[in-house]
């Protein structure tokens, strides 16, 4: 009843092809954007620095993986390494060009990741499915090896870690480095994530996105009706790696502040893959759901359990939150194998005919 589109007539093609054709969706998105903009005024530094910033960054990385796996159907286990390429590229760029605005460098560093992604995407032209997953796994191990063994990448630091120097921009704001306030970093991350999400949304709705989905659904048929697999697959790898690279650079520069190679290990790849699967493959909103579920829920459990008066040891909290999250993952995948995004879609269908059980 509330969520009913009856009576919303489209009189132009623009209105019909709009990103959010239903008025309620537009209102909902605006409300969420408004909340995202005012949340720093109400929330503590911990909420911004340890929940919101990583949540947005992981959501963006999940979008990157979702393009490749959810939309173009190419299974990848190399997400963590592609994020690492972005982070190390950004670190090298900012130490070589210290005066350039860090946001521009973050966006440029994605290009390096895209280049590497294309190289490791080449095998996808011949192999599919699990076999492709193995070659991306090779990319993961190879790149991780590079992060450890090529000292030039971390400027010959004894510790082998990259450390974020202080960077200012946009009229004196401290954007990165230890002195940067979480609010500033939050708005930078939010801005980048919003712009990237809108871009991706439009790419997916357009010709390029449709070729990806055709390749995913049946590559031979797609080829027969004129989709070039080379261009489609490699562009999916490039766009996906670009976004992952930007997310990786943000991970280090706007969240962690320093990173060892182990930050980009295979566990990160799996984490992002779980976010994509749990949120829903082939759905943008699902990326945000998945990131929230895998990242925010454990943090809430860890801080929430002790603060509601349950006195248990720190390590028990860790065990309990792992068990709860694990059980919830199984529960949600049994209830809805297509992820949280599909649940949300079903809910919308129900809302559309509410209070009647059917339309």
């Amino acid at each position: 009843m509330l969520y009913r589109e009856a009576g919303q007539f489209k009189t132009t093609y623009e209105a019909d092809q709009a990103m959010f054709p239903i008025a309620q969706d537009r209102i909902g998105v605006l409300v969420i954007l408004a909340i995202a903009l005012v949340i720093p005024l109400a929330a503590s530094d911990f909420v911004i620095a340890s929940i919101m910033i990583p949540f947005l960054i992981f959501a963006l990385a999940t979008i990157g993986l979702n393009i490749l796996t959810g939309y173009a159907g190419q299974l990848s286990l190399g997400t963590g390494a592609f994020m690492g390429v972005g982070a190390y590229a950004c670190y090298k760029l900012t130490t070589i060009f210290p005066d350039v605005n860090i946001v521009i460098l973050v966006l440029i560093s994605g290009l390096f990741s895209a280049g590497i992604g294309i190289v490791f995407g080449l095998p996808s032209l011949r192999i599919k499915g699990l076999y492709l997953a193995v070659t991306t796994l090779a990319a993961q191990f190879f790149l991780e090896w590079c992060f450890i063994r090529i000292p030039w990448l971390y400027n010959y630091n004894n510790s082998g870690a990259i450390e974020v120097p202080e960077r200012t921009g946009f009229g004196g704001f401290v954007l990165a480095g230890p002195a940067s306030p979480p609010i500033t970093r939050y708005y930078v991350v939010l801005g980048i994530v919003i712009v990237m999400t809108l871009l991706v949304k439009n790419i997916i709705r357009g010709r390029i996105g449709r070729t990806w989905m055709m390749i995913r659904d049946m590559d031979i048929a797609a080829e027969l009706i004129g989709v070039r697999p080379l261009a489609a697959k490699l562009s999916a790898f490039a766009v996906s790696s670009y976004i992952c690279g930007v997310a990786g650079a943000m991970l280090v520069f706007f969240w962690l502040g320093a990173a060892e190679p182990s930050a980009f290990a295979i566990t990160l790849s799996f984490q992002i893959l779980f976010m994509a699967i749990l949120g829903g493959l082939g759905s943008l909103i699902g990326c945000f759901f998945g990131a929230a579920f895998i990242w925010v829920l454990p943090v809430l459990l860890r801080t929430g359990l002790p603060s509601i008066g349950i006195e248990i040891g720190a390590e028990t909290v860790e065990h309990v939150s792992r068990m709860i999250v694990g059980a919830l993952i199984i529960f949600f995948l049994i209830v809805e194998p297509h992820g949280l995004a599909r649940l949300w879609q079903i809910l919308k269908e129900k809302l559309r005919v509410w209070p009647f059980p059917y339309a």
Partner: protein
Amino acid sequence: MLKKCALGVAAIAFAGSLAAEAVAEDSMFIPLLSYRTGPFAGSGIPVANGMYDYLAMLNERDGGVGGVKIVVEECETGYDTQKGVECYEGTKGKSPLVYNPYSTGITLQLIPKASVDKIPVLSMAYGLSAAAEGGVFPWVFNPPDTYWDGASGVIKHIGDMEGGLENLNGKKIGYIFLDAGYGREPIPLLEELATEYGFELLKYPVPGKEMQNQSSQWLNVRRDRPDYMVMWGWGAMNPTAIKEAIKIRYPMDKFIGIWWSGGDDDARAGGEGAKGYKAMNFHGVGAEYPALQDIQKLVVDAGKGHTEDGKIGEALYNRGVYNSVLMAEAIRTAQEMTGKTVIDASDMRMGLENLEITAERWKEIGLEGFAPPIKLSCGDHSGHHMMYVSQWDGEKWVPASDWFEPMTDKVQPLLQAAAAEYAEKNAPWPERTEPCAGDS
């Protein structure tokens, strides 16, 4: 669309405000970033127990330090850098006095934050060696020795065994290390000493996820036949390395670990064959000290804390106690200097910087002969204190050498150069603005 998400965000904001509740005024808050889970738990548990129990004992016996109770809260990091930073962000709003990261990776993350948030970092005998330079790192402390002191001590001991450092010429010394910030930290010093004394340094890195599978590294050791092996290991890496060394019949008295590779459980895992294995140490072992007896009586027997019976007095447990002694004494120093009973983080920084534990003071706190006197200063946040080599006799650690000094003359110039280099690489690094004691 997305209304559900909005609700979720609101819930997050609410939960966050709950987490940021303040600690009562008449207490002091010390967060412990501990790890009782994961592959490093084997080393992390005794250290965490020792730290927790000593502070709990002070609360029970003396009502805290200077009559002010210490509120201790553990935060589980699992030795994971991201979780460590999360713990830091989650607790820094509760006005903590000091952080003990217990991971070189987390320490490296916290060093730049420390000077911004004005909270000292006490990385006791780990972390960034160059942080000993108080002029560059006013908020970071790594007493009683840096890793470079430790590495120089190991080489000195090897020199003693060979009958003089000049006899090291032409020898081969293997270095097996955890391939992370921790294990890589001493390499510059070892390389410097290798060129100076003419020994060959062979490096055997052990990747973090391969800790429990070191057969390839030890195969190389068997091929290269180094005269001595030096180990920088932690967690599950230590018992694995000791077992592998026994398997290739490496002479155990020529296998020397840093103090973090000297846990009782590490050596015990090797069984009979581990007899003779050596590790550096900078404090006593055993539970005969009066303060440790108090812990047994007031904490362990009273059913508080996590410590199992019989674990008090083990090397890593005592190390945790040592760490807490440093904190408690720094609080006491700060209380004396400021005249306040409830101190804050910047008072704590002053307390750490002017920390002095004389032999008499060690006796007063019930730890006579536990460790040599400690003194820090404005410029020197580590102090190059004395250390000794301990040896596993099959059941416990026994001293295998007298207390001796590290090669301060070799380490100090390198520390200064490294600190300057760090500041330059992380430019603009903040200048020290905190006055030294006496200047203010």
